């Protein structure tokens, strides 16, 4: 996984600005940490040195902090300013991070939802809409820890670490060598351990998920088991599954935490080695106390960002995975058939399908080779088993799904084929299409399914649109409403509108002028 997805930078404005600001703040923070260490060394050196300090123990780096800082009053003033500045920078960084994080998530969310909406009915029916909703609500939220915690540390790792190494190099060669030798070991060992344990972790992860699913499955089954008087038994099974889950999880964690241990071990041990090496050289008079103090304070700072990157890696991985999914989804193409002018008026026109077929997810055509003509004044009823393509055929008449085979025609004019189609808007706006489980927008959410169905049907009947397309209009309705809907359908046809409905309802089939059986088939 890339630590910084280039698509985030390239496509999301707030992300770009945030990366810049964070980089600048990172460098400022690095300089403040450096100066703070030098001030501490300068302030402590006079009281620790056995004799009066003569020359500057900080070499050319010492130019950053004047020798006067050896005076306690001056040092405290410097430190106060540094602490104030670091506090302000910290606040600014957090504020920026949260703001940029929410903006990026928000922009990405809008883009994904709008893209999902533009993919059309066929995609919405594929059942992936729920996945995408989960992605935009919960999945993308994982980007927040990525922006707030991980990215700043990543920038500190690329700003602070090199600056600190150069400084340590300027102060004490041996300490710098210890740091330079151990530093690459950290990512190296982490990658190595990651590689070695990947297969094992994946196996454990799969086991964890399986056991987790089985437990939830048992809980979901409680209403059913209660009805059969068998709800008590599985409690023991829940415990067994729980223990299995725990064992799988612990096996996976024992491995996963290894890389964390190596990270902490290497970074802390190298600081210890630097300290011990300097201690002996200091006792031997090979190095000055001011130098040693500065290196001692700086050494942990070299490793700190890297350690934090490791700590926040998992939070960031979830966020990046979500972003990756979002970009992948945004890359899916919409219908690219060329549009050839506006649709003709459908008032009084016979609408027909000819050799019509749409590819289903399972590779079949559903419907396959469907031909019929729905005349104005007639009620055309589409029947057939579930999953054979009744709803698809109905949506195709409204221009919501385009054919993969055959054509949709109206009054002798071709509206859509596998190659081209007329302008969607001019076609769709002439059709009163009512899907199964209508939504009706925000005001529909307080209504029951049956009420929504009636409201949506009423809207269709009362509209002045010439083509009426109703998908299982009598489902979820009681007997009385059913009768009134069937009467309204007959009345609409009598008024000269073109009516096509899908149904399983015998009474509605009885009211048909023509009954068409829709069947799926293997694609040619």
């Amino acid at each position: 996984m890339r630590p910084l997805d280039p698509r985030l930078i390239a496509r999301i404005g707030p992300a770009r600005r945030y990366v810049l600001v964070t980089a600048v703040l990172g460098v400022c923070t690095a300089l403040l940490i450096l100066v703070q260490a030098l001030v501490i060394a300068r302030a402590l050196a006079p009281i620790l040195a056995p004799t009066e300090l003569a020359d500057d123990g900080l070499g050319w780096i010492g130019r950053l902090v004047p020798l006067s800082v050896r005076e306690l009053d001056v040092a405290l003033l410097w430190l106060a300013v540094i602490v104030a500045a670091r506090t302000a920078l910290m606040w600014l960084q957090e504020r920026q991070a949260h703001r940029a994080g929410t903006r990026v998530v928000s922009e990405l969310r809008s883009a994904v939802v709008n893209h999902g909406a533009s993919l059309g009915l066929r995609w919405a029916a594929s059942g992936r809409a729920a996945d995408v909703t989960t992605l935009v609500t919960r999945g993308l939220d994982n980007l927040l820890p990525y922006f707030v915690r991980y990215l700043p540390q990543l920038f500190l790792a690329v700003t602070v670490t090199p600056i600190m190494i150069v400084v340590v190099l300027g102060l004490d060669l041996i300490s710098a060598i210890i740091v330079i030798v151990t530093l690459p070991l950290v990512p190296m060992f982490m990658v190595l351990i990651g590689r070695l344990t990947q297969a094992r972790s994946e196996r454990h992860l799969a086991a964890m998920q399986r056991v987790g699913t089985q437990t939830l499955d048992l809980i979901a089954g409680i209403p059913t088991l209660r009805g059969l008087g068998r709800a008590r038994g599985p409690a023991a099974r829940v415990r067994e599954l729980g223990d299995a889950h725990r064992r799988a999880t612990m096996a996976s964690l024992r491995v996963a935490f290894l890389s964390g241990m190596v990270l902490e071990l290497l970074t802390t041990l190298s600081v210890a080695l630097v300290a011990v090496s300097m201690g002996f050289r200091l006792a031997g008079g090979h190095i000055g106390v001011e130098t040693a103090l500065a290196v001692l304070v700086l050494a942990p700072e070299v490793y700190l960002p890297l350690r934090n990157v490791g700590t926040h890696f998992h939070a960031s991985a979830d966020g990046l995975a979500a972003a990756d999914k979002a970009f992948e989804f945004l890359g899916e193409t919409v219908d690219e058939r060329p549009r050839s002018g506006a649709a003709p008026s459908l008032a009084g026109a016979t609408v027909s399908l000819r050799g019509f077929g749409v590819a289903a997810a399972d590779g079949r055509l559903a419907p396959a080779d469907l031909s019929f003509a729905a005349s104005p004044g007639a009620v055309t009823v589409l029947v057939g088993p579930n999953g054979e393509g009744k709803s698809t055929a109905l949506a195709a008449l409204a221009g919501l799904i385009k054919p993969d085979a055959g054509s949709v025609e109206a009054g002798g004019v071709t509206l859509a084929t596998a190659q081209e189609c007329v302008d969607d808007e001019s076609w769709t706006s002439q059709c009163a299409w009512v899907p199964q489980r209508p939504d009706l927008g925000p005001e529909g959410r307080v209504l029951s399914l049956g009420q929504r169905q009636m409201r949506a049907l009423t809207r269709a009947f009362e509209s002045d649109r010439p083509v009426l397309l109703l998908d299982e209009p009598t489902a979820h309705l009681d007997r009385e409403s059913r009768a009134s809907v069937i009467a309204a359908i007959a009345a609409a046809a009598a008024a000269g509108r073109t009516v096509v409905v899908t149904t399983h309802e015998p009474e509605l089939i009885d009211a048909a002028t023509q009954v068409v059986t829709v069947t799926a088939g293997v694609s040619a």
Partner: protein
Amino acid sequence: MNPFLKAAVRDTGITRWGYIRSVLAGTLALGSAVGLSAVAAWLIARAAQMPSPADLALAAVIVRFFGIGRGVFRYLERIVSHDTALRGVVRLRELTYERLSAASARTVLSLRRGDIVARAGADLDSVGDAVVRSFIPIGVAVTVSTAAAGIVAWQLPFAGGALALALLLAGVVPAVLTSRSARIAADAGVTAAAELSVAALSAIEANAEHRVWDAGTEARAALEGANRAVEDAADDAARPASLAAASQTLFSGLGLIACLALAVNAVRHGDISGPAAAIVALTPLAAFEAVGAIPAAIMQYHRSAIAAERLAAMTDEPDPAADANPAPASGRAELSMTNLTVGWPGATPTRPVTATVAPGTALALVGASGVGKTTLLLTTAGALEPVEGAVTLGDTRLTPADAGVSYALTLEDAHLFGTTVLENLRAARSGVTEDEAWAALERVGLAQWVRSLPQGIDTELGTGGHTVSGGERRRLLMARALLADVPLQLLDEPGEHLDTAGIAALEAAVAEMRAEGRTVIIVTHDDAVMAMADQVVSLDES
């Protein structure tokens, strides 16, 4: 502490020792960092006095030990704390299952919503996270901070006090600010997120409908509004969170300044030695790491508290009847409803129903959607009390404890488990033999289909297994009902989503139940299913 989280954590049964050893390991880990800082400071300061190298040997060993200790103890802490928490979650999960299996009808029926169950899984884990990511880090912060302040106080009491104060402020102030942030996120954020979820799903799934009816702009506006509300809520919550982070930097800086000033002055006045001053001045550099974990711990605490509250709401009060001993099955018995009026508390009750259903006959319950057909079925099963009148099998009023003995209730959306076909049928009765299972499958016309499955009757179904179509599902539920050896069968909408062949299979199953002398109640609004019954009762007001 939040009472719900407190109760949930108590239910995990994690012992005091479980917490102590995790906090101990964590203290040793972060304590190693503090110790490293203190001893290294002493080492450098002592070395500056140019002693013989032997005087530094012990300190050098200790420094190296702390260098290794941090990683090792941290690994130990993570393993111990996760193991403790996971064991607790296993207990909590079992306990939650037991409570749910004995809960009131309303609670049990709410489990039919998959999202509730899925959230319950995450909520149970979240209680475990409270232990690992909240309680233990806070415990470690207290012990390590105390130890760090103690080390400094041992050298220079006044500086120890200053460091203790700084540590306290660096722990408490961010904790308060983070709490406020979490509360804002929980109040405004959760509402906004729920609205966003609805708006997003609607914008995507109902897009075709919006296009047809020119409602796309409204849907987009609703989505943008929800999106902005989420953004605003997040921004409000971020304000105190940013202050929390900044306050930690401030207080740790102030602690450092105070200790440095006191150390240098103490040496100038000859109160302490140089090495002691180095310990006082440099220990604060490592001492604040433990309190640094507090904001995240407080965030986790609030997340877990919300999860625990949801769990508590889910498992509300137990149904005392579910625990009673079942009455012995009364053989083949007549079901009688006398002026029976049913309804959920607070809802409009149904019209009174009087009917007797003889063994070997079937009654169809019909009526408009929402009139109370399923409620009547649940009342018959004893899951709800009648509003008025009575319903008895033979002479006894059924209770939930009689399920599986006197009656079997098959809900419209009854669950198929992610296990084999055979095990799914055994949900009806544990003793179902393979022959019996095949006979039932034959009866509902599924034997052919099961034979075609890769492992036949031992094929796993559902997630990760073989997917089942709506019709196959209905028939499997029918076969399961057939295998429940009970005098009374309660079937909720068994004909929904069945094609003609499916209706025929249902008819065969109902015919078999009647032939065996069982009493059958079917809720339906399908004419073909009504035709299978000996009598039809409508709940619609006439």
